[in-house]
């Protein structure tokens, strides 16, 4: 276990360094951030002041080192735009995105698991075809479009749900549906495929030969085996939801990280963008780690060699 954790930490570190250097050099290429900060109407002198204050006149390596060593101690620098430590900014926005992500993945799982199981158990039935259709359409629908359509329908025409903001949990319903619906097909297919494969396997035949009842066979014998890959994918999807929340957060004006990222890109707020990319990368690494642990917990073949 210890060896595994160390290995994972090392991987996380490598990923962090790699990702951060990519994002940092990206930002560095963007040209002079000082001009962006100065805003409309600034003179060359103003820009020079800003350049000096923020240290943009130093070399790439120095700036990168400065940033990454700061980041290591939890200091991602100051947002150019908000003039506020990025950490504070992230801490402020994180709850919204986290809530959204949890709701979305919850919605996705709620949709994917039962439908996936149903589709597998009743293969080639109407239920199977309908859930497959639901999945295929879900994968094909652009989420920004779905978001707009849902707003038109539920918020404007029916007035059941609020249009934007994050004040109450009701505000999260539509965005969670949009994100969750986009994330669920892969999990649904995986559940279905896993269940079909499990149901076809020899040990299920054994269980049936033992006279086990269908419920036990499906839930105890097949599902456990089928969810193994779903766990990993759910972790990855969770990461995607965080990253993909840019679009949805901007449509629903949810003041979360994704939205902050999108706005920060527009404002050339490099410290914020860099920090967000790095944080996302770390969250992703942590999630896959968690998924591995969870899989190991379910699967003795991984747990006990």
């Amino acid at each position: 276990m210890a060896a595994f954790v160390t290995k994972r930490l090392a991987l996380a570190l490598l990923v962090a360094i790699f990702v951060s250097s990519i994002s940092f050099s990206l930002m560095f290429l963007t040209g002079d951030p000082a001009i962006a900060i100065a805003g409309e109407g600034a003179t060359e002198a103003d820009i020079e002041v800003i350049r000096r204050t923020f240290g943009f006149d130093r070399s790439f390596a120095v700036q990168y080192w400065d940033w990454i060593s700061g980041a290591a101690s939890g200091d991602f620098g100051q947002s150019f735009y908000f003039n506020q430590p990025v950490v504070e900014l992230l801490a402020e926005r994180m709850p919204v995105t986290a809530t959204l992500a949890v709701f979305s993945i919850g919605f996705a799982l709620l949709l994917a698991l039962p439908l996936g199981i149903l589709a597998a158990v009743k293969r080639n039935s109407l239920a199977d075809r309908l859930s497959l259709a639901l999945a295929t359409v879900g994968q094909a629908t652009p989420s920004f479009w779905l978001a707009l359509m849902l707003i038109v329908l539920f918020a404007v025409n029916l007035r059941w749900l609020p249009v934007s903001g994050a004040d109450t949990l009701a505000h999260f319903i539509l965005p969670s549906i949009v994100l969750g619906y986009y994330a669920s097909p892969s999990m649904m297919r995986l559940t279905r495929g896993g269940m079909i494969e499990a149901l076809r396997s020899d040990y299920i035949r054994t269980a049936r030969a033992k006279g086990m009842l269908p419920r036990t066979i499906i839930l105890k014998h097949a599902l456990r085996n089928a969810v193994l890959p779903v766990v990993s994918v759910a972790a990855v999807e969770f990461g995607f939801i965080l990253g993909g929340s840019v679009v949805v957060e901007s449509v629903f004006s949810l003041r979360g990280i994704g939205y902050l990222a999108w706005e920060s890109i527009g404002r050339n707020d490099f410290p914020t963008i860099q920090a967000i990319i790095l944080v996302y990368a770390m969250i992703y690494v942590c999630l896959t780690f968690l998924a591995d642990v969870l899989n190991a917990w379910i699967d003795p073949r991984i747990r006990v060699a």
Partner: protein
Amino acid sequence: MTRPGDPIMKIRDVTRTYQVSQGLFRGRRPLQALRGITLDIPKGRVLGLVGESGCGKSTLAQILLGLDRPTGGEILFEDRPIADYGRKVFGSRIQPIFQDPYSSLNPRKTVRQLIEMPLVVHGNRDSADRERRVRRMLDLMGMPSRVIDAYPAQMSGGQRQRIAIARALVTEPDVVICDEPTSALDVSVQAQVLNLLMDLRAEFDLTYLFISHDLGVVEHISDRVAVMYLGQIVEEADAETLFRAPAHPYTKALLASILVPDPHRGPPSVPLKAVQPDAMNLPSGCVFHPRCAEAVATCSVTAPDESVVGDHRTRCVVGLPSH
């Protein structure tokens, strides 16, 4: 030139150790698949190699084919280390036949492409010549030449195995390593393939290393037989001798497990304890002692040396009876 009966390949103290990962939370551990194999493959003969699953037969085959490198020891082909031969030269002189006729043929290729592949690789640019050779091989295999444009998926297991044999022989090699070439086949098909192999041996003056877990087959086809157990040769002798007077308790157990159809005998009783060998955790002393019916106290402490009488050798404290 090696004369018939003289060793064409010499395996000298070959070891192969794999590092096996132990799952997510553990590190890697060594697995000694081969532990000091010394064996001669006599030219023009059939050397049978038997042993139970996981004892290292395929590992040895891979090493002989140059597909894997030994961790220790060396292999001599016609008294030169195989590393001295170029990849291609060596490849044209030693060819494999594998167990699974499904995985040994590329499903995307036609019979023609499959059989002529070695020729193409060895630089035969004359397509008419290649075609001639392919057809000759098909003819030798007893296959109608119209299968030449068929795909493996259109053929039965036995037919596929013939294609695999044709591919192995099209470069006219000296040595053919047969790694359980019939164990995936039904008896009726197995008989066809065995007959074919024996005919081809005569026709091409081939040397076979015939690996199998089926002693019946090995007894039928081999001139010499080596018995392997957990990465070691525990006994080697002429087929005649070995089946008549086995020396090693493991060989005896193997022979006792052969099930010749005989309705008057019940299930055999095998002089073996119900302990399974585990290549990851080798027992102390003689690795066979936990299963051995004849084990004595020293067996669990000291590994026995090889005892040799004539061309019969074994690795057991009891040693060999003088013939």
